[in-house]
């Protein structure tokens, strides 16, 4: 019988253990190496509306941002670091939007906020990012005071969206010619009762009256935002019998208003001016489009009538299977500013990026002359394409478009801001 050496047995066990340990160490080292080689993603938090009457706002915003991000990631990202969009539904409620933004920053560790909220929630988001210092690009809110009012403005917040004052200056000048041609002196307002609706309506008439002093606003009606029924507003309009109606309703609200107004033959009795009608969502949803509605362009692939714009729209349509709308281009351009700032600085630090974005001019298919600038003084975009025309039921949906003159817009805007005490 052979004598089993205890030492031999122990040595075998020792060797087995050593081999196992070496194997684990090798695997661990590989893992550590792999972790070191993979780069941390840069998260962009996007609070938006993904349900309810304006769910298309959130979907189109997300799509627009994603299109820009995918292009950047495909080109290698920021030194190999990819961007990741983290989108959350706030249902359009300001309290929920504020909570969502805090969660995106604190829990999801988002470095940058792309705020795709309507105005009602954008102001709530502004206060959160003012406290956190996170870079924020507002890409949907059009209420001028968000960036024009120095008490509301924040150094780390920018706006990449059309503004109600710009649309109103252009719209007021456009409408004034019809006041003179068609004698449209008695006007009425039917706009949603919140910041954007009130502000844009007031601004429109401020600038309309500057160009056509004979205009008189004989009555107003202010339906609640996302109201399901406009019957009482429509019947009031019928009683007042204005010659022209201005409305800032949009999306599903505008579709419902037009459908219900058609029942009463409303649009045969007056001329409607609405800056938000020329939008594919609305145009395709209205079953019976009244004739002769005047609208601002919002977004159309045919305005500006450039190859770059048409190509972008085609790319968007191909990727998402729906046409782009106003919020699509705004979020795309908003992300473009952020991306260009990252490329320029090589950083994701909020203050560094903010300093780079301030005053930046980028090439853009949506610029009036192929460029859009982020104005330094109030951190909002200028020189984007604005035009008003007449709605027609088929593509291109807006005819006789009159592009706005940005020199005039900037001059009148400056005067208005001085009167408001903003400058």
């Amino acid at each position, binding site marked *: 019988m052979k004598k089993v050496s205890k030492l031999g047995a122990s040595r075998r066990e020792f060797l087995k253990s050593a081999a196992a340990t070496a194997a684990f160490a090798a695997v661990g080292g590989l893992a550590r190496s792999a972790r070191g080689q993979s780069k941390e993603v840069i998260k962009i938090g996007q609070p938006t509306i*993904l*349900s*309810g*009457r*304006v*769910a*298309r706002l*959130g*979907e189109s915003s997300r799509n627009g941002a994603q299109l820009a991000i995918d292009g950047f990631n495909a080109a290698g990202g920021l030194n190999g670091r990819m961007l990741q969009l983290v989108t959350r539904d706030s*249902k359009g409620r300001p309290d929920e939007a504020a909570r969502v933004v805090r969660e995106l920053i604190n829990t999801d560790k988002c470095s940058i906020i792309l705020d795709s909220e309507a105005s009602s929630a954008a102001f709530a988001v502004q206060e959160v990012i003012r406290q956190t210092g996170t870079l924020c690009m507002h890409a949907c809110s059009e209420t001028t005071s968000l960036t024009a009012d120095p008490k509301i403005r924040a150094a780390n917040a920018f706006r990449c969206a059309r503004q109600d004052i710009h649309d109103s200056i252009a719209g007021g000048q456009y409408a004034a010619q019809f006041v003179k041609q068609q004698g449209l002196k008695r006007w009425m307002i039917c706009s949603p009762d919140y910041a954007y609706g009130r502000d844009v309506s007031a601004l429109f008439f401020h600038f309309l009256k500057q160009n056509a002093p004979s205009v008189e606003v004989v*009555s*107003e*009606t*202010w339906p*609640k935002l*996302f*109201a*399901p*029924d406009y*019957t*009482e*507003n429509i*019947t*009031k309009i*019928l*009683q007042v019998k204005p010659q022209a109606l201005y409305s800032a309703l949009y*999306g*599903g609200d505008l*579709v*419902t208003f037009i*459908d*219900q107004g*058609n*029942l*009463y*033959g409303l649009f045969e009795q007056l001329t409607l001016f609405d800056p938000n009608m020329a939008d594919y*969502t609305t145009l395709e*949803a*209205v*079953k*019976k489009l009244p004739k002769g509605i005047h609208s601002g362009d919002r977004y159309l692939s045919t305005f500006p009538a450039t190859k770059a714009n048409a190509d972008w729209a085609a790319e968007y349509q191909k990727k998402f299977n729906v046409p782009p709308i106003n919020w699509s281009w705004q979020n795309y351009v908003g992300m473009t500013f952020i991306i260009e700032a990252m490329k320029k600085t090589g950083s994701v630090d909020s203050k560094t990026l903010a300093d780079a974005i301030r005053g930046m001019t980028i090439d853009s298919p949506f610029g009036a002359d192929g460029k859009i600038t982020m104005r330094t003084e109030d951190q909002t975009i200028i020189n984007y394409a604005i035009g008003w025309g007449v709605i027609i039921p088929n593509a291109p949906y807006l005819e006789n478009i009159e592009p706005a003159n940005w020199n005039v817009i900037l001059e009148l805007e400056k005067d208005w801001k001085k009167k408001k005490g903003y400058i």
Partner: protein
Amino acid sequence: MNLPALLDCVSSSSCVVTQVSTGLIIGMLLFLVASGLTLIFGVLGVINFTHGSFYMLGAYFALTAYRVSGSYFEAVIVRALGVAVFGVVFERLFISSVYNSNVLMQLLVCYAFILILDDVVKIVWGTDFQTMGMPSTFALPPIHLFGGFVPPFYVFLTGLTVAAAVGLSVLVNKTRFGKLVRAAAVNRQMLACLGVNTSLLYGAVFGLGSLLAGAAGALAAPVRSMSPEMGFSILIESFIVTVIGGMGSIIGAFFAAVLVGIIRAVGSIGYPLFTDGLMFAFMALVLLVKPTGLFGRKLA
């Protein structure tokens, strides 16, 4: 308050016709929803917070049926029945478990299903708003009456709702089923002792209430865009109507719905900044003067 505008309106036949018809239109839809709510409460003693979701389902079911069949009438009838069936199943499987529970438990169950049904609608029909459009039968110019405008579709809607109100009243007051329902509202246990299948009766009542809400959604579909969570807005208004009319009173719901409709229609002219507030103020006044509501007794 815009008193001159209000006086101008009252002195104008066209304004009176238009505003009264507006009030009726608003009121009729509210009545359909509120009558189902008050019926369920009056008999079952349950405050059905999912009632607005049944309205939403009625609208979406009608949209799908209309797109498939092309017939609006079929869409309304069949889909209202579909919501009724859903209501019966919902009552048998879930609500019946909480009849004798604390009202908070009932609220919890209902709220859970509001969230579930909203998400189901998002998954099936998408998150974006949808529109049905006006059926060709009703795509007609408005009727001119003493200078006022009344759309033909709204005449149909009002007539149908009045017929439904009469039918419901006859059902509850003149039929054996109605007698059983009224008896169940008073003493379910005694009714069960007399050999009546009260579970089946309860299911039928819940189904009838759901049918009314679903019918309202289907009828409103041509003129209101649909979106998930649309049920919430009409739920609040129908609760106001139910409280003003008296919980459990169908005739109360009818008069309250018409009153609320008139308040909103006239309010848009006379006190446009306080229309919603006036509705709530009126409700508060009724609660102060007659806490059980204007016709506040069960199944009056």
